[in-house]
């Protein structure tokens, strides 16, 4: 595949992410307006910060008049998982020049990472990642603009039902892996269980990080084959 084909294949595989990001972006745009941001401020957040869960949490914290330091710390904790994800992506893209990697690193999100990793290893090129990350970023921004500009215009039923998108996407990505391998099925169940147990004691974002790391470590103890 040439560069253009790799880029387009990235854009194409981003379609489930785009379908998830536009509605969630719309939801964020609406939330941002309600918590006192202007339309251009809401859009700047999506353009330059670009972290779904963090931006949603930001709206909550702004509404509660939390201090700047507390807001930044919370968003940092929410983003810690990106260190792991970016490490995986950069490991696959290690042949690229540093400045290119710095640019591509901006596009690492949960969903982009998931699609990138579930794709065959030999197809994980820089151009492929660029197509995937750029179209996802663009859709998040289009969603934000639509939500901010048209706040309160989406029918309530639809905006409520769209809340499931992110989870539905993760499930649709995981099920085929679970069907293929019993080990992976058990790993999925274990991760969910750990996340639930931890969430009884610590904040849910911390619980997710702890469960992710512990389950993956435990997985290395009984899973032998490479997982692609």
């Amino acid at each position, binding site marked *: 595949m040439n560069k253009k084909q790799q880029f387009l294949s990235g854009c194409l595989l981003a379609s489930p992410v785009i379908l998830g990001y536009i509605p969630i972006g719309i939801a964020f745009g609406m939330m941002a307006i309600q918590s006192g941001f202007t339309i251009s401020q809401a859009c700047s957040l999506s353009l330059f910060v670009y972290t779904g869960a963090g931006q949603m949490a930001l709206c909550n914290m702004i509404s509660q008049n939390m201090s700047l330091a507390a807001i930044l710390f919370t968003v940092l904790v929410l983003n810690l998982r990106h260190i*792991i*994800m970016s490490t995986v992506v*950069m490991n696959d893209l290690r042949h690229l020049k540093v400045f290119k990697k710095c640019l591509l690193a901006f596009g690492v999100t949960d969903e982009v990472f998931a699609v990138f990793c579930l794709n065959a290893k030999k197809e994980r090129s820089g151009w492929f990642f660029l197509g995937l990350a750029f179209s996802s970023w663009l859709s998040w921004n289009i969603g934000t603009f639509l939500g901010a500009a048209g706040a309160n215009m989406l029918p309530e*039923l639809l905006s409520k039902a769209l809340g*499931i998108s992110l989870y539905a996407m993760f499930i649709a990505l*995981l099920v085929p892996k679970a069907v293929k391998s019993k080990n992976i099925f058990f790993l999925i169940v274990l991760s969910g269980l750990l*996340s639930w147990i931890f969430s009884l004691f610590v904040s849910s974002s911390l619980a997710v990080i702890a469960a992710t790391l512990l389950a*993956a470590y435990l997985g290395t103890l009984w899973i032998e084959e490479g997982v692609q």
Partner: protein
Amino acid sequence: MENKTFIFLLIGLFAVTYSTRVLPVFAVNKIKFSKKAELFLNLIPITSMSALIFPSILSVDASYISIGLFGGLAAGISAWMKLPTIVSLLISIAVCAVCYECGILF
């Protein structure tokens, strides 16, 4: 929000978000991953998605567990039937809309 305050907030948020993403660019060249470490990293997407789904899917609607339950089941069954990801997603959204519309709420 006042623009001056917002600029500080934006710069701070950019810093705490981008730093976690760019750090591995500079760390990864110095680290060589063993087979076990590579397996660990390969398992991360599976465990992180699973941990993100459960238990928070049940509170996708803070008042009703049924929305997350049926929406999740719909996505799972569709994916199990080997439907494309986008189709599973749309079926799941449709099931949630039906739950709201028909009052399947508990």
